[in-house]
């Protein structure tokens, strides 16, 4: 079982291979770790550890804010673009479009950092890719 308190202190202030600094905060009411990065001021990743896996979820935008007529095309693009994104996938959860990754709970710390770094790096490009639907 992953110790979230330990993981938070390992992540907070950690410098990634790409030179970004991670900031981590434990949200005790949801038992998740909120991760931000110096590489992108807007990217927010929620990390959750369970018995089997570690999940990292980045909220992108609300579905209800997208014109209904544009949604079929949006959904198709979400599906087409998702496989292309390294280490993460795109999905709809409740009213939100999210980017998420998952790995074994037994994975090493460096892999968690890589996932966070990659997801942060992907964030702007993915969001920019759907700009026409949001603006």
């Amino acid at each position: 079982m992953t110790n979230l308190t330990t993981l938070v202190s390992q992540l907070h202030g950690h410098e990634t291979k790409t030179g970004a600094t991670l900031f981590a905060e434990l949200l005790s009411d949801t038992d998740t770790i909120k991760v931000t990065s110096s590489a992108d001021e807007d990217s927010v990743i929620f990390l959750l550890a369970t018995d089997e896996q570690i999940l990292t979820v980045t909220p992108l935008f609300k579905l209800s804010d997208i014109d209904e007529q544009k949604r079929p095309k949006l959904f198709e693009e979400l599906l087409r673009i998702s496989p292309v994104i390294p280490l993460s996938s795109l999905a709809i959860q409740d009213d939100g479009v999210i980017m998420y990754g998952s790995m074994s709970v037994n994975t090493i710390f460096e892999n968690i950092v890589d996932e966070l770094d990659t997801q942060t790096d992907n964030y702007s490009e993915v969001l920019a890719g759907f700009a026409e639907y949001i603006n």
Partner: protein
Amino acid sequence: MGIFSSIITAIKGGVSEVGEGIVDANAIRILEQEIREADTGIQKATVSLTELKAKEIGLSKELANLNADIDDYMSKAKGALSQGNEGLAREIAEKIAELTATKEETESQQQELDAHVNKIHGVIKTRKKQIEKNRLELKKAKNYEDLQATRKAVAQSMPTNDSSAKRVNRALERVKSKQAEADNQMSADKWLDDLETGADLDNKINEAGLGKSNTSVDDILASLK
């Protein structure tokens, strides 16, 4: 319906509210309990199987010994007969008969036990496969529950449209700036490459019009006239 199928059906049915449990928490607990009990049952069955197998092996060895003894007495009986000692041969033959009766009984027990062991082994194998299927089913159910745990945190932080538009613009700027950096880097790399190969100097010579003259067809014809 399997848990995974019921999750898919429920999602298609539009179940989406935070906190709504598609998967019956009780169903998961029961499945976990069943797997634990099945695991314990398999462990006990395996121990019993090993004990039975040990007995079967014991009987096989006994059988081998009986066969060896019977063979031995047979050759002794032949020996007694060749000596003309029919009385001894008869005694030995009685012994052989006794041993043969024991052998037949032992063989019957050994075969019955062997069949029993194989049957139990088959049942254990089948149960193990079922347990693994149940474990996979449980994994699917728990995966869904795990994802639900992120919903609250994500829902609380999901940006509104106003802020989405601003974030998107910032994202577009970042992408542009990344691309510009990449382009600048490529130019810098090319400059360094040219410098190292001397191509930089060749370029300067050519630009000054001092490069190799390109003799045209007209020039050649003119020189021949």
